[in-house]
């Protein structure tokens, strides 16, 4: 008996599908399934220190929105928003300023640009321990420099008013060159015709910047805004090394809050509940920023 041959078209489609199957399986197990688990765990009282667990209904959600967890939820939300605003300001305003400063096309400036961009590639943990050392109250060099101009030592990381600023210094150092590079590559794409036309109309450089450069860069700004906002909400590492969320939770960002419940208190139930809330928040921010980005932008056409 002759085996029935499959349609070659079908075989080809099957082989193409086989190319993406491993990826789909992995994503299903390691990305999508955990979301389902997360929802399930949030309805249990799972504490890693106990042997058993059971379903407890909405108890954790009550704890989160109307219980002892509420305070810390709003606190971490506030800290995260403050941090995000800081990172956005540095990346967008600072990046733009740096782009204007380094916008000169010769070898020396090319080398300088590379160095300004380099911190992005310095591992966050290395950068963080260096900043820990620079910001040290007693022997740190920043306080030494400040003492030269008559400012008394600041307890950068131990004071709730300056701790978040310290974290932002580190973030700013690593991100500003990135904002600069993105803006510079966009600036090079702006046609010189606009500037020539403006020069004929007698516009000075300040006018040119506000009337041409800034509007023409709005898609870039929007892009930086969306991506930086979303990534800044996920900040963890700098906080973990510099302050561990302290002092008095003044730097306890969202992810650190979840991390603390899960890996310090071993309350998987509570951690999962906060994690779901965080996930929904991320989705909302993503959708909202995408919505805003349709419209409000000048495109060169």
């Amino acid at each position, binding site marked *: 008996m002759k085996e029935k041959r499959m349609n070659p078209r079908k075989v080809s489609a099957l082989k193409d599908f086989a190319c993406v199957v491993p*990826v789909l399986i992995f994503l299903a197990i390691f990305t999508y399934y955990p979301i389902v688990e997360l929802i399930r765990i949030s309805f249990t009282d799972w504490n890693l220190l106990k042997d058993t667990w059971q379903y407890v209904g909405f108890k954790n959600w009550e704890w989160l929105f109307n219980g002892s967890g509420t305070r810390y939820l709003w606190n971490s939300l506030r800290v995260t928003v403050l941090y995000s605003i800081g990172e956005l300001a540095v990346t967008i305003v600072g990046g733009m300023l740096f782009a204007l400063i380094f916008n000169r096309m010769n070898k020396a400036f090319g080398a300088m640009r590379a160095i300004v961009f380099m911190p992005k590639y310095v591992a966050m943990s290395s950068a963080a321990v260096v900043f820990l050392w620079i910001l040290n109250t007693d022997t740190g060099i920043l306080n030494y420099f400040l003492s030269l101009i008559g400012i008394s030592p600041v307890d950068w990381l131990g004071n709730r008013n300056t701790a978040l600023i310290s974290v932002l210094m580190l973030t700013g150092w690593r991100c500003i060159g990135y904002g600069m590079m*993105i803006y510079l590559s966009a600036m090079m794409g702006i046609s010189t015709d606009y500037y020539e036309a403006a020069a004929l109309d007698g516009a000075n450089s300040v006018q040119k910047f506000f009337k041409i450069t800034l509007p023409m860069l709005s898609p870039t700004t929007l892009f930086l805004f969306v991506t930086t906002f979303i990534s800044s909400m996920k900040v963890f590492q700098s906080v973990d090394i510099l302050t561990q969320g302290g002092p008095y939770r003044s730097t306890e960002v969202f992810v650190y809050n*979840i991390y603390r419940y899960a890996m310090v208190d071993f309350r998987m139930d509570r951690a999962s509940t906060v994690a779901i809330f965080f996930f929904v928040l991320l989705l909302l921010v993503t959708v909202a920023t995408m919505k805003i980005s349709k419209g409000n932008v000048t495109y060169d056409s």
Partner: protein
Amino acid sequence: MDKHALADVNARNESAKRMRKIKAVVQWVLAIIVLLIIIFPIYWMLVSSVKSQEEILLPVPTLWPREFHFENYINVLNRGNFAKYYWNTAVMTAGILISQVVTGIFAGYGFSKGKFKGQGLCFVIVLGALMIPIQVTFIPLYIMIANWGLSDTFLGLILPDVVSPYYIFMLRQSFMAIDDSYVDAAKVDGLGRIGIITKVLAPMCKSTLFTVTLVTFTNGWNNYFWPKIIARGEKRRVLTIGLAYLQNTFAGNETMNNHEIMAGAVLAVVPVIILFFIFQKYMLTGYSKAAMK
């Protein structure tokens, strides 16, 4: 009359020239100031890493070390166990890199040049994963992987990073830019899928492939969050985590051993920074390429 007009134009050119010169000077001065500020932490890390313990504790810091103590590096590698962390980091990074490249290239092919039912839906599944960061899913992931007995193992470190939706997306985009006729011609020549990928698509997208792979390498090497969760013991600790622990490894006040911590920090960044200088062209565009979608 004519002479006056000419003088006028000349004067205007003169003043424009002067303006341009002033602008250049201002730009240079600002650039150098900014550069010094940005470079200072790196300079301070390098300088501090070769100072002696006495020197690092001086109330008035020295901007240039009095003596060079390169043994700080040896101490960190041996006493601080950094040699082992290096090995752990290298194996983890290699594992992540290889698996992301292999899965990424095949999936990138499937989503660009392949044709099958449900292709669009499958791609949405991949893109959707971009919205689910590990910072959200780490709790179930930790429980699952620890239950499999994989905490403190290389497999445990690598598993959640085997597939990168970002990598797949980038490769798909650049494969799509290649005309189908190349693929059809290769098929006529009797090349299979692996042949098409390795002999046609990959060579034509060399620079994208290389750039994205460099970003993957950097992200793997600097990985922090997941290793902190899954490798809580010493056995498979990576450099980034080891560095954070270094303060506790050498007993005593945290300011006491900053020279050695700085040596550790230097050791941790050296491979990536070397790559950065060799492949500057690619690495400068790496992130912005990702940016332009």
